[in-house]
């Protein structure tokens, strides 16, 4: 060791040794960097390039280390190098390093690395001693053979160790390898140098052609630095490039995975990649599919048959062998210089579901789930279009509920909706599968009955429906008896087109309603004429309002005790230019149905108030209000305006209402009545005794007057029951503080009986028929009154 220390410290220029060590360090680093690169690379050509680069970088570094160290060696006598042998020493280094690393690459196992590393260590010695052969100095070299042996052994051992460490699994261990190889190089060199003693011999001449040591050293150092530098730079560039590639691949991979649609890369008909979306749709993992044929998931399809320009429908077979409707489109791309096909797979289930739902919504009534008008019209049109032979005949049933409106108006829409749902359910129970039931709107249903026009069968169905809908509906403690009416038209006899058939079924339904509801009617040719007549009447009624064909008649009311006039009830008359006088019983229901009652009612009020003005100041005028008028919340305002316009004081107006007004929306009706009351207007309950819950209404609103229905009055005093009813109502009125009026008094016997029971007012033919306005004014004139009382 002393010998080695003396050799390095005293015989060498330490600065140049530092340069040599630096080059050597760079070289050994490059050795392992390139070596690992060889193992990392896949392709043979690439491995070869990295291998050759590594061998040249390593050998030139060893070689340069040697020559720079030789320059640092100061033998204190002239020296030089033989050019040929110097070049040969480099070649020896390249060959042996190449051989050693080749062994390591070919046999990366531990023994392989020991042997390969040993050869590399040997390369150092071989290069050193060949290089020493090129060293010319003015003297003789005397070798100490034992030290030479040690130097060779150290090189071989450390070379082996460096290869063992350099390809270790642990990064830290690997990092030590270049240092070990550096020690191998330096150890061999300096031990080798300490083994030599130069004896000055002036007789020896430095042969010509030998290169000046300094120049050689500078050249080798630069060349080695360049080679090593280039190789390391190349490695660095390669790494950067590779990182960029990897990042790009990762990005593409991520993009493919976040794509909503399924993507799959195919090499020919073999699947070479799929994204997460497709994994999800299939319920299969990527690994189980890569390498599988395309037909595994897209049977009956090949890559060549998937178009590039537009999507086509296909069936995907998922992990559970279930078929998934999809659309596919292809796109060619180049991956690693090979053409591949990207197949985009779009799951159609959600879209198909949405379409089916839209179709269902478009064709079904959302409330009941039955077919809607749209689908019904389509089905009916289809029946007409396709009817042949047996199919040529079929029945159409139009149905509507008899008392739905009252339920809806009084108990609310939620109750109405629940009722409709139950009606739909019961209808389905009463019909067979082939029959189409539709809700056309509101409480209007239609049934397209399959199976010909066998009349008994159709009547049986109609009866069944009437029965099942006549049964009570119990909803939230309410007992609803709605019932239904049905109109039936038979195709093609009752209508050659859908419109005609439906129109005629409607007419039959109308007929069933007219007959008293809760029944069915078959269409008859005569119905049309009757309905036509009704329509004409409706048109006439509209015109009559404009043409002022109406007139008010008045029937006086008298005090039952004194016989003095109290006032009169206004009654409407219609003078039709062709028909003559039309009964209110004929046109008032029509006016109520068509809504014309609003205008008509207003005219009656205005006229009655205006005409009553000419009467003596204490007489009242009574006007009937229809239940339909109470649906208009502005009724009270209208009446107030009329009073203001005509100047009639409120206390001279009396309005007569029937139970019907209270039946529909009691709260609204009562609110209107209270408002009228504040105007001083008196309120009478008309036709009392004919309804079925009159008593409860009397309790809920303080009427001024109860009018006993004429059906009871006419039968007094002979009919005991009627007499009892009249008596009861009179007593009831007296106890509630309400006046009572008997309508339809025709005989003296009736008059005296009723007056005797304590009834306040009489009205009827016995006193006077209804008379025109001028007549009533005459009747009420003071002279006449005197005459009457006299």
């Amino acid at each position: 060791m002393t010998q080695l220390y003396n050799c390095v410290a005293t015989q060498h220029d330490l600065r140049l040794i530092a340069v040599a060590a630096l080059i050597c360090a760079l070289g050994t680093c490059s050795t392992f960097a390139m070596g690992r690169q060889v193992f990392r690379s896949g392709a043979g050509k690439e491995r070869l390039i990295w291998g050759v680069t590594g061998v040249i970088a390593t050998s030139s570094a060893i070689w340069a280390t040697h020559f720079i160290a030789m320059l640092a060696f100061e033998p204190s006598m002239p020296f030089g190098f033989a050019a040929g042998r110097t070049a040969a020493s480099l070649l020896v280094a390249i060959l042996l390093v190449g051989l050693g690393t080749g062994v390591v690459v070919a046999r990366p196992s531990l023994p392989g690395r020991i042997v390969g590393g040993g050869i590399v260590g040997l390369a150092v010695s071989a290069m050193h001693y060949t290089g020493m052969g090129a060293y010319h100095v003015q003297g003789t070299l005397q070798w100490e053979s034992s030290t030479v042996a040690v130097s060779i052994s150290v090189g071989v051992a450390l070379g082996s160790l460096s290869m063992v460490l350099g390809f270790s699994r642990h990064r830290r261990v690997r990092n030590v390898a270049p240092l070990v190889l550096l020690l191998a190089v330096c150890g061999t060199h300096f031990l080798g140098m300490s083994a030599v003693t130069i004896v000055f011999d002036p007789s020896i001449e430095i042969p010509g052609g030998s290169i000046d040591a300094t120049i050689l050293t500078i050249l080798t150092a630069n060349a080695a630095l360049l080679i090593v530098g280039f190789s390391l730079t190349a490695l660095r560039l390669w790494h950067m490039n590779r990182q960029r590639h990897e990042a790009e691949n990762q990005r593409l991979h991520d993009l493919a995975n976040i794509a909503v649609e399924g993507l799959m890369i195919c090499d020919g008909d073999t699947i070479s990649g799929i994204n997460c979306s497709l994994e999800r749709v299939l319920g299969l993992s990527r690994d189980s599919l890569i390498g599988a044929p395309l037909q595994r998931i897209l049977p009956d399809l090949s890559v060549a048959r998937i178009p590039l320009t537009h999507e086509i429908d296909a069936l995907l077979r998922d992990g559970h062998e279930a078929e998934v409707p999809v659309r596919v489109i292809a796109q060619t791309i180049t991956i690693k210089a090979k053409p591949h096909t990207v197949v985009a797979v779009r799951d159609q289930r959600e879209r198909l579901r949405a379409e089916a739902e839209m179709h269902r919504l478009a064709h079904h009534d959302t409330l009941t789930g039955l077919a809607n008008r749209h689908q019904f019209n389509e089905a009916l049109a289809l029946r007409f279009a396709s009817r042949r032979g047996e199919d040529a005949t079929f029945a159409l049933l139009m149905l509507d509920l008899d008392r739905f409106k009252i339920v809806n108006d009084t108990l609310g829409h939620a109750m109405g909706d629940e009722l409709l749902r139950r009606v739909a359910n019961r209808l389905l129970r009463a019909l067979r599968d082939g029959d189409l039931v539709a809700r056309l709107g509101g409480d209007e249903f239609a049934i397209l009955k399959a199976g010909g026009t066998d009349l008994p069968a159709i009547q049986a169905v109609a009866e069944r429906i009437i029965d099942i809908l006549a049964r009570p509906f119990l909803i939230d403690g309410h007992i609803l008896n709605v019932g239904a009416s049905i109109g039936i038209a038979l195709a093609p006899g009752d209508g050659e087109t859908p419109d005609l058939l439906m129109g005629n079924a409607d007419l039959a339904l109308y007929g069933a309603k007219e007959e008293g509801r809760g029944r069915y009617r078959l269409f008859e040719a005569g119905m049309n004429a009757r309905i036509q007549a009704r329509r004409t009447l409706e048109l006439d009624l509209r015109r009559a309002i404009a043409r002022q064909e109406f007139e008010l008649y008045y029937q006086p009311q008298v005090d039952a005790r004194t016989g003095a006039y109290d006032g009169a009830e206004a009654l409407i008359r219609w003078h039709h230019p062709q028909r003559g006088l039309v009964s209110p019983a004929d046109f008032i229901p029509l006016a109520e149905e068509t809504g014309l009652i609003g205008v008509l009612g207003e005219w009656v009020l205005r006229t009655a108030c205006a005409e009553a003005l000419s009467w003596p100041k204490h007489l009242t005028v009574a006007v009937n209000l229809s239940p339909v008028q109470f649906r208009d919340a502005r009724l009270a305002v209208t009446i107030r305006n009329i009073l203001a316009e005509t100047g009639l004081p409120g206390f001279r107006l009396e309005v007569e209402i029937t139970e019907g007004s209270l039946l529909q929306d009691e709260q609204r009706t009562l609110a209107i009545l209270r408002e009228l009351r504040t105007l001083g207007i008196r309120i009478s309950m008309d036709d009392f005794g004919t309804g079925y819950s009159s008593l409860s209404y009397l309790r809920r609103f303080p009427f001024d007057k109860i009018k006993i229905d004429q059906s009871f009055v006419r039968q007094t005093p002979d009919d005991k029951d009627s007499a009892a009813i009249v008596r009861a109502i009179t007593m009831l009125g007296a106890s509630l503080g309400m006046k009572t009026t008997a309508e339809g008094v025709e005989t003296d016997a009736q008059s005296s009986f009723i007056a005797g029971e304590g009834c306040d007012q009489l009205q009827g033919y016995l006193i006077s028929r209804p008379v025109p306005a001028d007549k009533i004014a005459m009747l009420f004139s003071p002279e006449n009154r005197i005459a009457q009382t006299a």
Partner: protein
Amino acid sequence: MTIHRLLYRSDMDLVGTAASIEQQLIEIIRLSEARNAVNDLTGALLHTRGVFIQALEGPLPAIEATFERICCDLRHRRVELLELVHAEERVFAEWSMARITADHAFEKLFPCLENIEEQHLESASAQATIQLMRSLLIAGADRFPSLGRRRAPIPRSLELGV
């Protein structure tokens, strides 16, 4: 919990031989027993001369659902609701659905066997019917004491030949 009681009558529309109708009736009773036990309903079904009279008692929603099912059932015809009232206590607490078969002697005791259209059955009459049904059941149970009168955990029917 408040209890309601419902009484209705209907015409029986069962098709088949006497034996087959009997079989259908047994099936109807069995099903309604099972359903009623689940829904906390009790009651009795009387049938004679092609007429059903049935009493149902229990919570109102369960009564409404059961009656709607009956109204959807075409084996009943001309279903008529005789009474729906709030009840203080159950009359048929012991039976999920007791079956009463009345013979001719007893038929005239039931005012609602005849379908009286457009005429509301007076509540007194409904009350009378229900009490009569109960009396028949208890008389039957006395005649067959082994049947007991406690409400069994497992729904069962009482077949009574009165």
